[in-house]
């Protein structure tokens, strides 16, 4: 849309492209994910139908009214607009405003082509208590109803924040209860940066993979380990609308069998003697297979060569069993970050890690997030909120072989052994004795 949109933002396009899966916020507050294809017609249910081409090329974040299947651009909502519309449900639920038209009746009216403002008028007329209300309330009620039955929607930019919020609200189980504050902390704790090298185990529908890729900006390396025989499909990546250059140079995947160093994957032969190749089709297929095998072998070699900056785990499997498998590939001073919906799972892991000197400073934290309504005169935390956003275990992998690093002959292995044992206690953040690694 604008030529000055600089090159560094090619992780995702700043405007809507054909084929994008776009998040649309509807008047009732719901958000829907819809694929926008050139020349297609998009249906938003009772909100209306419009031509996809009207959205293609538009920047994200705009608000539209649907008029005769065409989009009419609206200015962004102000605080005054929000104040008048946001509390719709509050008013309707308090038992004073009894809705005189049933949902079915409204549906029937809408299907008969009655305009939203007419439906509202009918509602108001039929409203039993309406005449008792002040003029001020009347005006407010009307505006709220208008918003609820209006044919407007807003496109939502697929930032990591917005995409995480959409998926978490939709189904917290599918993202393993990783709320945006947890995801943000995971990415920071794992030191994700352009050019970094990471291993991730993401059974959270690709939420963590999406976050890592978004932050890497097409530079660095990410190997993921999946549970399936086929490459993992990370559905959240679809909602992120990454450019191809963000993903392909960076991401490779193995599964738990191919990621097993002691295992030689059983694959069909690729080096078929040329006299046995019977067709061009077979040849092309063999080439593809060879390419895939090379990629597999390269990814395996790369993983087994180790020295990755961090290991990030959000898995349905027991986290310590994963650590045992993958910790050899993490560099010294690298971060281990494990996410879980349950404190207990991570408590058990932390107890294990405390006894192992190669894990420095294991800590378990619970995330905590609170959102506020900030309407003038009506500022308060939101009345309902998510119960939890998950727990995070963080530790640093270290080379605990201090004797190998001793620079002097003064060192007494036995005294050091004692010290090694003591540090397990010292790393416990509940201990106050800061002297404990003096042997």
């Amino acid at each position, binding site marked *: 849309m604008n030529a000055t949109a600089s090159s560094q933002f090619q992780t995702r396009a700043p405007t809507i492209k054909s084929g994008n899966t776009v998040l649309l916020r509807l008047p009732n507050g719901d958000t829907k994910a819809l694929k926008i294809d050139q020349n297609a017609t998009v249906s938003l249910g009772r909100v209306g139908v419009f031509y996809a081409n009207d959205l293609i090329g538009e920047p994200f974040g705009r608000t539209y009214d649907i008029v005769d299947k065409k989009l009419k651009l609206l200015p962004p909502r102000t605080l005054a607009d929000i104040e008048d519309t946001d509390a719709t449900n*509050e008013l309707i*639920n*308090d*038992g*004073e405003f009894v809705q005189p038209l049933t949902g079915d009746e409204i549906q029937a009216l809408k299907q008969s082509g009655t305009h939203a403002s007419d439906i509202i008028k009918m509602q108001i007329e039929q409203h039993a208590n309406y005449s008792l209300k*002040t003029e*001020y309330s009347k005006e407010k009620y009307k505006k709220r109803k208008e918003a609820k039955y209006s044919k407007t929607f807003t496109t939502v930019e697929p930032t990591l924040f917005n995409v995480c919020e959409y998926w978490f609200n939709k189904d*917290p189980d*599918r993202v393993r*209860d990783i709320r945006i504050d947890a995801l943000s902390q995971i990415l920071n704790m794992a030191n994700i940066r352009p050019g970094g090298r990471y291993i991730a185990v993401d059974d959270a529908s690709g939420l963590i993979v999406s976050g890592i890729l978004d932050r890497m900006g097409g530079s660095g390396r990410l190997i993921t380990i*999946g*549970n*399936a*025989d*086929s*490459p*993992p*499909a990370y*559905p959240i990546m679809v909602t992120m609308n990454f450019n191809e250059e963000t993903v392909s140079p960076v991401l490779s995947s193995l*599964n*738990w*069998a*191919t990621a*097993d160093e002691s*295992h030689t*994957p*059983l*694959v*069909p032969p690729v080096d078929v003697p040329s006299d046995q190749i*019977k*067709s061009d089709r*077979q040849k092309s*297929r063999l080439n593809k*297979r060879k390419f895939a095998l090379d990629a597999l072998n390269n990814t395996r070699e790369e993983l087994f060569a180790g020295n990755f900056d961090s290991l990030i785990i959000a*898995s*349905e*499997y*027991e986290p310590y*069993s*994963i650590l045992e*498998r993958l910790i050899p590939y993490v560099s010294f001073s690298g971060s281990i970050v494990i996410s879980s*919906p*349950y*404190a*207990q*799972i991570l408590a058990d892991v932390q107890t294990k890690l405390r006894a192992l000197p190669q894990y420095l400073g294991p800590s378990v934290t619970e995330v905590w997030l*609170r*959102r506020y309504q900030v309407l003038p*005169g*009506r*500022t*308060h*935390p*939101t*009345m*309902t*909120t*998510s*119960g*939890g956003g998950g727990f995070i275990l963080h530790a640093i992998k270290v080379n605990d072989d201090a004797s190998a690093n001793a620079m002097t002959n003064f060192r007494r292995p036995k005294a050091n052994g004692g010290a090694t044992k003591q540090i397990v206690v010292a790393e416990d953040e509940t201990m106050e004795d800061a002297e404990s690694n003096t042997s």
Partner: protein
Amino acid sequence: MWSTARDIADGDTVIIWLTRDLVQPLLVTAGKEFNSKFGTYRHSDFIGLAFGSKVGSRTGKGFIHVLRPTPELWTLALPHRTQILYIADISLIVSYLDIRAGSKVIEAGPCASVESSSFPTTTKHRVGTGSGSFSHSVARTIGPSGRLWSYEFHEARAKKASDEFSRHGLAEIITLTHQNVCKDGFNVTDEADSVFLDLPAPWDAVPHAKQALRKDRTTRICCFSPCMEQVLRTVSALNETGFSDITMYETLVRLQDVSQIPAPPPVSEITEKLKKVEAVREDKRQRQIAAGQRSHEPHGEKRKRTEDLTDEEPTPPEDPNSGKRLKVAAVEVDMSPTPTMSVTPKVSLSKVVPEVRGHTSYLTFATLFPSLPTNASNIQIDS
């Protein structure tokens, strides 16, 4: 208050527990019937049973529990059942205000004033007289030697609450008055031990509250307001009126979701399954090649099919979260995590339920200390 007898009698108020989400009060009246989706019951069937009995329906389909009312069950049975969450607020207010056997308490429901029109009337957020939650809880706590003066601005609500208190045997403890306390204040002077205001503009009632509170002892006030702007203004009013130790709290409960599930399996389990998938696929391919080589049919259809088979790739599932079962050739391997051995212990795991109440109201507390003596033998006055 409600019956304390062991068994249910005609005319008792009981709480019918259908499910945790479906709890309702019932006035037991011989001859009447209670109908629900869990069956039909004659009220007379309840009479003579112990409170807390499980009762089967007359058709043998379904059952209910008939409980003794408590203020907490009463709150759970109110039409807006989210009010159960107010147990945190109500119990903290009772403690902070030092309400106990024999206390004299004032509570006031919302009063309308010109000024308050810009503030929400907080119908949803009220714990005051209107809902009866706070009144019942306080009446229980202060007991027969206590006194609760309850003020309600809305005439209809006042009438309804008054009837309810009488039915529950609380008329001796609770005095209900239909009055705009912001304008007309309270009808007692120097008598209350504590005041609870659930008003959109509590600052208008704060000076009246001071008048109603006794001055010979330490007394306390609580203002219940959903919005921060209300708190800021209330704090100023309390300070200007001479209250001390002004502080503010928020309290909530976070219901836990406890699930008993098999302990998460080690990753070796899925590793072995995936190796098995590989082996099965390779074995199938080998057998198909062997079958193809044994075949003496001419090149063509059959050959092509074998060739295809040797190239067989696993079918990627459309979504790995929806399709855990991979079809590999003719052999199915269950890819879901399962305990490796049937003796894998189950674990109870607890987390907060997905959606919880994030806010009810701010509780602004303040204390009114006894007036300083004008003379005292061993004490010098410094003001």
